[in-house]
């Protein structure tokens, strides 16, 4: 219902919204999957903190070992969302261009009494997409930071990491 209302009011009339929605959903999934590289990198960094006792086979924390900073491990893990957000600019341009396809509906849109109608319909979707990307990236950032903070042995956290969550 909400999707229908959004489509009716915030998308250029007649624009193939479901294709755009499919693209965005797939893009979000890919960005989320790509961000999982943080888990892999973190796991490798965390494993490097330990060494195996050759006699007992037990994993023990190496003395003085420090894990890489959070930003180093995070690297480009969230860049998928940045790329997806940037592609929203392309969709905004596509929405405007849509008013020149098959007819010149731009003439109608530009002479509507509501001056914002055209811009709302062309920009609302992409802006919402950018916001969703920002929120998703922000949530993953917090989640990954929480993993970094709580799954890493305290003594291995770098001073910068310590400052970040008030240990300095």
């Amino acid at each position: 219902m909400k999707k229908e209302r959004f489509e009716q009011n915030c998308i250029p009339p007649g624009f193939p919204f479901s294709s755009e929605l499919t693209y965005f959903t797939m893009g979000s999934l890919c960005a989320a999957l790509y961000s999982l590289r943080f888990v892999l990198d973190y796991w490798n960094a965390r494993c490097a903190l330990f060494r195996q006792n050759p006699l007992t086979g037990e994993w023990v924390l190496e003395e003085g070992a420090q894990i890489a900073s959070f930003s180093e491990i995070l690297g480009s893990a969230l860049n998928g969302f940045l790329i997806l957000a940037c592609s929203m600019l392309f969709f905004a341009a596509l929405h405007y261009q849509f008013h020149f396809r098959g007819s010149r509906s731009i003439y109608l849109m530009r002479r509507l009494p509501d001056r914002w109608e055209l811009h709302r319909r062309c920009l609302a979707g992409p802006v919402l997409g950018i916001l969703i990307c920002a929120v998703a990236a922000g949530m993953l950032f917090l989640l990954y930071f929480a993993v970094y903070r709580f799954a890493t042995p305290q003594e291995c956290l770098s001073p910068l990491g310590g400052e970040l969550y008030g240990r300095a």
Partner: protein
Amino acid sequence: MVELNILNKRYWGKRALENISLCLPRGEIVGLFGENGAGKTTLMKCILGLLPFEGTVTLDGKPVTRKNIASFSFATSEHSFFPNLTAQAHRDFYALHFSHFSDQRFRSLMDFFSLPMHQTIRTFSTGQKNQFEVILALSQGADYILMDEPFAGNDLFNREDFYKVLSGILEPHETLLLSTHLIEEVSGFIGRAILLRRGTLAGDLSVDDLEESGKSLVDAIKEAYHYRADRVSRAIGELSGEEGEK
């Protein structure tokens, strides 16, 4: 009343309209004539504010802005509808945005032209698309209806229907500015003819005055354009002369 005062428009430095000043009172049916590139479409787009220009265009003394833009409707041969929407969806869209939208007129005209309500406009034939474009312009509830070559691609019978509809349904307060090359066809139904030539106003003729003087609209227009009736026969003569020499 719509007033154009010293309207000038240039495209990349090239003159498209020069010093156009004229008035369009309410209730007139006005023909806008001129050769290709004379500036007819540009003039309409300037009135609607779709193009930047120098000079002024006012509606009842006020500049044309979003506040009074609904007083104008526009039917263009380029079409301004949404091809992927149905006629019903257009009706809803227009009713939402134009407070004076006439649902009754819309439905009557859809019936008259036998156009389907629940079919996307892109599936219509060219003639049907033109009809639908005109229906939207007539139903919007505007006082000034601007039509730019609305019959391009329509057959004679279709056009005859258009003229009947236009002359039959227009209210006394509605003004129609009709740009077309079909001078003879519309001559019986317009009250005034505005002539453009290379971006300038070449004439502003009252059809009543022409009738009184016993001159036809076509002849008056030819006169205004300094049309040389013998130019075709001369050209043919020259060509055949050349061939004869060979």
